[in-house]
């Protein structure tokens, strides 16, 4: 195994000729100096690298994989505990305890540039069902994070919580630990739908949970809903949206059911076919959510996210702004120094990974070598998900104006059809006519159009196609 100290020798080697088992200390991946093997492997990167990568990470995702049972649509790395497990504070499930220990070891073993790194500004406990983890154990994770990276006071600490997995006491305990944002996995307000998708709770628990969150005074909470569930009708969806608005969360996430292979739903249903709604119906669901929530004062600030003013999920914005973040825990992904890396999804392998990390050796992910085009694609893909859109000015600075121009060319028909909206520096829309006449003049259009975004809801609804088009403009 090669140690990181050898990395300068490899300086001149082209990326592809690396020995496949080349290893490095992960600490080096995080450090900006001396440069890591990876960063050196593609010299282009350093010159074109988006400035956001150079910022030290201030966000951490922590995966808490435990669930009582697996939902029928879920393909996340989770650990199903089984419903028979008594949920008491006294006897912690050893599986949870062991995992938390492992998780803390991972955090510990991850070396940060302690002197320079600013403290964490967001922490997100995702799952799984993080609310199944006893607050005592959550506390140890937060402590480890705090001692390791520092935790800014007032940092956004979110936790995904499922109805029926917590009471007021647990909520209060968590709030005391610093959890200040709750993402409540409601998904639907109809028992038959909840049952059909294998959720471990009913509508009763949903209402109880909303009540607890409210009574405990969680000032910033989000409600998750899923549209396009099997047998879901327009009336049901409308009812869910109305009840969601009535509960007055500060944030709503609306996910459209994705039927994944390997899930129970994957075996049962074909997208677009009964009992799943047709794509016209599910597009209508999407539009209904967009209009009802907007009318209720929520900003549709990302394809599937709505928030009251200034209640955007700061943690998620890190992703969409293509900023670096730590990832800890089973199957979680990190984005550090321009490299996206996913941890093993199987517990055994994850344990080995943590062990290696502690031993200072870790196998490089094979194809995470960033290059300019990949980064441009990431940047486009993520920013076009948001209402803010793609900041052409910084995009141009990083990737050059020819890419911007090919984007304009690719999007011309969609600007005309209204799927894509161009904005000037004051975020005023540039009309189609204006755009077309500007397009002939390369310089002037670059001056005028500073943002490009997908329209709500039509552009958002076709975001895959539109982003794929942008990809084509970037790598023809």
């Amino acid at each position, binding site marked *: 195994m090669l140690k990181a100290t050898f990395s300068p020798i490899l300086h001149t080697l082209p990326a592809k000729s690396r020995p496949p088992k080349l290893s490095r200390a992960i600490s080096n991946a995080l450090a900006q100096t001396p440069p890591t093997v990876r960063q050196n492997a593609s010299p282009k990167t350093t010159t074109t690298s988006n400035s956001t990568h150079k910022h030290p990470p201030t966000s951490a995702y922590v995966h808490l994989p435990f669930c009582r049972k697996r939902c029928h649509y879920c393909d996340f790395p989770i650990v199903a505990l089984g419903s028979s497990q008594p949920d008491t504070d006294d006897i912690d499930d050893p599986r949870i305890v062991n995992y938390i220990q492992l998780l803390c070891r991972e955090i510990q073993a991850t070396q940060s540039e302690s002197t320079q790194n600013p403290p964490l500004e967001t922490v997100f406990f995702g799952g799984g069902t993080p609310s199944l983890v006893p607050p005592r154990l959550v506390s140890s994770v937060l402590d480890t994070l705090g001692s390791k990276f520092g935790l800014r006071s007032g940092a956004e600490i979110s936790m995904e919580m499922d109805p029926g997995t917590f009471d007021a006491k647990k909520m209060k305990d968590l709030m005391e630990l610093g959890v200040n944002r709750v993402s409540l996995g409601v998904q639907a307000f109809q028992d038959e739908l909840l049952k059909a998708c294998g959720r471990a709770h009913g509508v009763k628990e949903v209402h109880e949970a909303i009540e607890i969150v409210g009574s405990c005074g969680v000032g910033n909470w989000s409600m998750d809903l899923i549209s396009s569930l099997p047998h879901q009708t327009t009336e049901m969806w409308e009812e869910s949206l109305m009840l969601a608005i009535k509960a007055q969360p500060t944030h709503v996430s609306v996910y459209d059911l994705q039927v994944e292979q390997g899930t129970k739903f994957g075996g049962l249903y074909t997208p677009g076919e009964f009992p799943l709604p047709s794509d016209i119906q599910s597009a209508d669901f999407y539009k209904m959510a967009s209009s009802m929530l907007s009318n209720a004062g929520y900003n549709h600030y990302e*394809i599937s996210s709505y928030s009251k003013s200034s209640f955007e999920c700061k943690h998620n914005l890190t*992703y969409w702004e293509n900023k670096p973040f730590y990832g800890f825990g089973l199957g*979680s*992904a990190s984005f550090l120094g321009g490299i996206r890396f996913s941890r093993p999804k199987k517990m055994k392998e994850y344990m080995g990974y943590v062990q290696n990390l502690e031993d200072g050796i870790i196998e490089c992910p094979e194809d995470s070598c960033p290059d300019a085009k990949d980064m441009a694609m990431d940047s486009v893909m*993520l920013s076009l*998900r948001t209402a803010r859109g793609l900041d052409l000015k910084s995009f141009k600075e990083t990737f050059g104006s020819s890419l911007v121009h090919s984007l304009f060319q690719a999007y011309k028909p969609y600007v005309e059809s209204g799927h894509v909206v161009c904005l000037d520096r004051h975020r005023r829309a540039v009309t189609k006519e204006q755009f077309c006449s500007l397009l002939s003049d390369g310089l002037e259009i670059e001056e005028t159009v500073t943002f490009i975004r997908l329209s709500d809801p039509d552009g958002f609804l076709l975001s*895959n196609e539109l982003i794929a*088009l942008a990809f084509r403009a970037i790598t023809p």
Partner: protein
Amino acid sequence: MGYFRRASDTFERYLIHFSSSRFSPLLAVNRANPIESRLVWNQFGWNYYAFCSHARQNCNDNANSFDLSQYPPEKIRNFSIIAHVDHGKSTLADRLLELTGTIKRGHGQPQYLDKLQVERERGITVKAQTATMFHDHKFQGADGTDAPSLVGFLLNLIDTPGHVDFNYEVSRSLAACQGALLVVDASQGIEAQTVANFYLAFESNLTIVPVINKIDLPTADPDRVKAQLKSMFDLDPNEAILTSAKTGQGLEHVLPAVIERVPAPPGNRNSPLRMLLLDSYYNDYKGVICHVAVVDGTLRKGAKISSAATGQSYEVLDVGIMHPELTPTGVLLTGQVGYIVSGMRSTKEARVGDTLYQNRSIVEPLPGFKPVKHMVFSGVYPVDGSDFNELNHAIERLTCNDASVSVTRESSTALGMGFRCGFLGLLHMDVFHQRLEQAGNSIRDCLHWGALLVSNLVLYSTREQAQDPDLEAGEALLSSIHHNASETLYNLLQQTRMQAPQSWTMLELAAEIIDAQGDIAYASEVFNDLLTHQVHSFYFEQTVELATYVAALISKVQVQNPAALPSNSKIHSSWEPTVMATIIVPSEFVGPVITLCSERRGEQLEYSFIDSQRAFMKYRLPLREVVIDFHNELKTITSGYASFDYEDSEYQASDLVKLDILVNGKPVDAMATIVHNLKAQRVGRDLVEKLTKFIARQQFPIAIQAAIGLKVIARETIKPYRKDVLVKCEGGGDVTRKRKLLEKQKDGKKRMKRVGSVDIPQEAFHQLFKVS
């Protein structure tokens, strides 16, 4: 000859007669017992040594030392074999080659002369091939009692394609022949191409030797065929030779019949050298190889020859015969057919039909051939624009050996750079397409470019509103000049036999003048005609005058690509090419065939019965109607019993319209087509409907329309898809995964052609005008 006349009808009698007449000593043993003799035949198959005709056994030993001077014209016979497809032409050729020891039985591949891969795959002959055979013929004494004398003959066999598309190959071959074996399948009888080929040979004044083949088949009915030969062609049934090329039965009569019935080549040994260029192809090692027929004089290796068409001179580097491969002889004498290698750089220099003559001698050029007429045009585009050069290369290589394909570059907004190729007919197009794909295969393992046959019409002329008040005169001139130009001029020349010094400059001037009228296609056509017919200055001026006048009077557009035709209807009248179709069907199918032909705008010209069971019909049909699916349809409605053939015929005025296909209001040039007004509605609906199946839903509604000018006659809308969004994208793992999905989606678009904002898959172009 008497022997053949007396040939009896039944096999039994035939055999008795055969063995008793004069031939084989071996069979003579069986004379007394015909049954036994038949057994011998069946048991041992046939053996050419047993025949009277003594094959030249030592031909391979002294392959390079043929003394062609032993074969004066009177000992030469040039003949070809003509037949309907599958009547056994190529197999018969094999047998004759074996019989004369030119190839060994069992050696070499069957259908020896079908050299192209595509010929073997399809079992058809595409290119005419020549082979020289030597055969010793026994002449019976005048009174039948004298000892027979052996005389060596040189026979040139030219195998010809059966399909009408390759008629030009047939007529080319026939020009070097004095006789033809007309092969007819004993069970199928006369078929459409039999008729067509018969008339080709008949018009060339060839002696026709009817051969009824496949008499070994249980369904063989030679008597019926004989009766058909009599009623259709007025051929004496007694002259027919009964054979089975498969078993060898009757074959021994074929060559004697050729020698006795086919006249020797005319030609004068003492005249200056004059030879006809029959064919040319490119050989990687030797360069351009020309097949020639020496009409007069003698050709020797090292001779300096000139081309009448181009004025270029060459030195004959190699000369020889095809026996059956190139066999150098150093000399070719009057009446002989062989090959020359003369250092031509490309087959384009070797104009088929050209006259080659000794340098500095003055000869009258030979009549030459009708120029190749392209009937079907098709666009050929690489699937991926970057493969253009490769396609270009492949096409160049192919046209080296198939000069009958015309190739011009063109570009389409939908498909990019490509070629428009002109073909002699549908089969020709199909064969070319296949050869192109095979060429691509050999260049690369996988065929990155697929040739794309975009649309399929055809020479087509339109005339804009003439300013001249004398419209009728213009039309008369148009029709006389237009497609009959070559015949008209040729006839004029023949009538006057006017000879004047050649003046190529004058010809060029003519081309320029016509050119100046803005009708390049026509100019080059006339120019070619002039070249071919060696028009000399006297007629030349008249021609120029005529052409100039016509060009001034009318503005004619020849449309090879429908897209090139302006959509706005300034067209005063349009003319379309027609074909003369020959259809032979069992009588019970006459009704449906007549219905089909009238649906296809056919005009019945002739309707008769070959015999009690089979009807013979002649129709004039617009080529356009034949191109699309006619043959298939005909086969379907007649359970496969119909036989069909056609030859190109004159243009006829027709109510044609350009049918545009519009995708979201944008015309797709590669999909434009020309149809008869009455059919526009139906064709438009079909095309639009077909297209909707190939274009995937996109994010906006896609209107697919068929329109004539501004009038939309058919429309379909492809509904937009409404939702294509990956909703959740949070966390790093999601980012990587989702990007991969989107990249895949992106790659799917690569192989689409974009029209406006609509992506059209290659498949759509392929399928839309697929010719069945």
